[in-house]
């Protein structure tokens, strides 16, 4: 039953993809038939039709270009001409660094907030104000103080990924079932051991959910951040190719951004499943 459902869903996905590519192809193909068209009809259709070839690349153009990129992902011909692999590598490295720093700050701090009602209340107004600030709004301040565009981008990633992790960790820790804590208390388990043997495993699914939300946001933000700071990275690549009017490359970059984002999400989803326990 489920396997047949999966099979049918898969077939439908493929059909939808084929339909999308087909429509795309039809919409953008060079209209060689224009010449044979009724001139009056051509007039009616306006410039696009009479021009013949659309400015928008078709799926075949994109496919050919993608193949070219995939064959040489890591070439480096100076600042404005690097392989897509290198550009993605830069972006992933920035996201990874900012994200790891955020993990190092958010999880211990979230633990403290979750365990101490005093800290939770005292820090709440700050968190409430800082959380809704768009991470990009920090950029000028970061550039001014740090004076390094690459580190500024990492800082922006740090800022945007810290909140979901912090709030989820604090929530997960604060809502550990009282009876589990009581088990540890009746066994005279010390605070540190209790934190690692009871609170951490109990809160891990919530913490990992926060981490999964964070990695998604970080990947959204890196593209915009790199468009702003320039130099390297997939966001810069998109902007640069737009300036070169290479829509084909922009489409390829969009596709790759989506794929990498999905991959990052899947990795975190797997970790989440690993720490989730059935009750």
């Amino acid at each position, binding site marked *: 039953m489920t396997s047949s459902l999966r099979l049918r869903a898969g077939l439908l996905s493929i059909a939808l993809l084929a339909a999308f590519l087909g429509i795309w192809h039809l919409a953008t193909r060079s209209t060689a038939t224009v010449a044979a068209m009724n001139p009056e009809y051509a007039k009616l259709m306006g410039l696009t039709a009479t021009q013949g070839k659309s400015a928008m690349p078709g799926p075949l153009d994109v496919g050919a270009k993608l193949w070219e990129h995939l064959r040489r992902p890591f070439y480096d011909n100076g600042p404005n001409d690097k392989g897509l692999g290198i550009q993605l590598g830069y972006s992933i490295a920035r996201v990874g660094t900012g994200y790891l720093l955020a993990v190092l700050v958010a999880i211990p701090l979230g633990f403290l907030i979750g365990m101490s009602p005093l800290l939770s209340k005292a820090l709440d107004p700050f968190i409430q104000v800082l959380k809704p600030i768009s991470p990009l709004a920090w950029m000028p301040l970061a550039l001014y103080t740090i004076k390094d565009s690459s580190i500024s981008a990492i800082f922006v990633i740090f800022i945007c990924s810290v909140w979901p992790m912090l709030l989820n960790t604090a929530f997960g820790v604060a809502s550990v079932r009282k009876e589990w804590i*009581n*088990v540890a*208390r009746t*066994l*005279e388990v010390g605070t540190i051991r209790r934190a690692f043997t009871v609170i951490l*495993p*109990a809160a891990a699914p919530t913490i990992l959910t926060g981490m999964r939300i964070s990695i998604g946001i970080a990947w959204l933000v890196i593209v915009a951040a790199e468009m702003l700071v320039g130099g390297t990275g997939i966001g810069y690549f998109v902007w640069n190719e737009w300036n070169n009017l290479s829509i084909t490359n922009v489409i390829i970059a969009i596709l790759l951004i989506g794929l990498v984002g999905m991959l990052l999400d899947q990795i975190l989803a797997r970790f989440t499943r690993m720490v989730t*326990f*059935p*009750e």
Partner: protein
Amino acid sequence: MVTDKFISIEGIAKRYPGAGGGTTAVFENLWLSMARGEFACVIGHSGCGKTTVLNILAGLDTPSAGAVVVDGQAIEGTSLDRAVIFQSHALLPWRTVLGNVAYAVSSKWRKWERARVRAHAQTFIDLVGLTGSEHKHPSELSGGMKQRVGIARALSITPKIMLMDEPFSALDALTRGTLQDEVRRICLETGQTAFMITHDVDEAIYLADKIFLMTNGPGAVLAEVVENPLPKDRGRSDLHRHPLYYALRNHIIDFLVSRSRSFATEKPDHDPRKVPLVHVGKPGLTIASSGDEQRQTRIPPTNPGLTG
């Protein structure tokens, strides 16, 4: 009561902030004591404060007034000497059966190496009849099996006192019976002092040496201590054949049905420090802590013909 007081609850109270800014007391000035090796059951209606008393005894909760003395020392917080079997079993779901018991064992004996901890835990898993399930997670166990793990965990640290909060209330009659037998056997064999909350009168009669009857809250009091007249070697199946069984049972049920509600108005001079000790059906042996006529209690057996 001039027995040796292994556990002595001395004038404890528990108050919570009330609705109108004042405080409501779950109970005030509660006195209760137990001898070493004694098995006591507490019976009372829902909300009268039984769990609160047990949590205070365990050290999980602190009283608003009064103190608890165990083995001559006022308790401060929890202790490995007082094991708790929780009503909701409270197993750690990310650990296996063995992991849950081993967690308790390694908490008590921190220096033991892994193999020794596991071996010790395994003996107690075997004891409660869970051999073969040690690598299952709690979610893969039935309610009765989970409760057994809770019992194994509590026993594995060889406590001096077992505190049990309605440990069998969620179980079917058959499983409950088996576990009652096991707990009774283990407590008798190890000379355990046990304090158990229950809503099941038969369970109390089967297990307890002493039954504490609590009136309804708020402002609950310990109304009576009923001594169990049944012989120590009683069996669960022939319990109801004992001549004093029905007298005892009726006495407790009477209390639950009517006197638990009307107690405060009927006995306004109830002295919480001298709670009447009731002996069911022993002619002439009417006990009250003082000579006070009001507190003298004697309940005749229902079928006197059988009394030896």
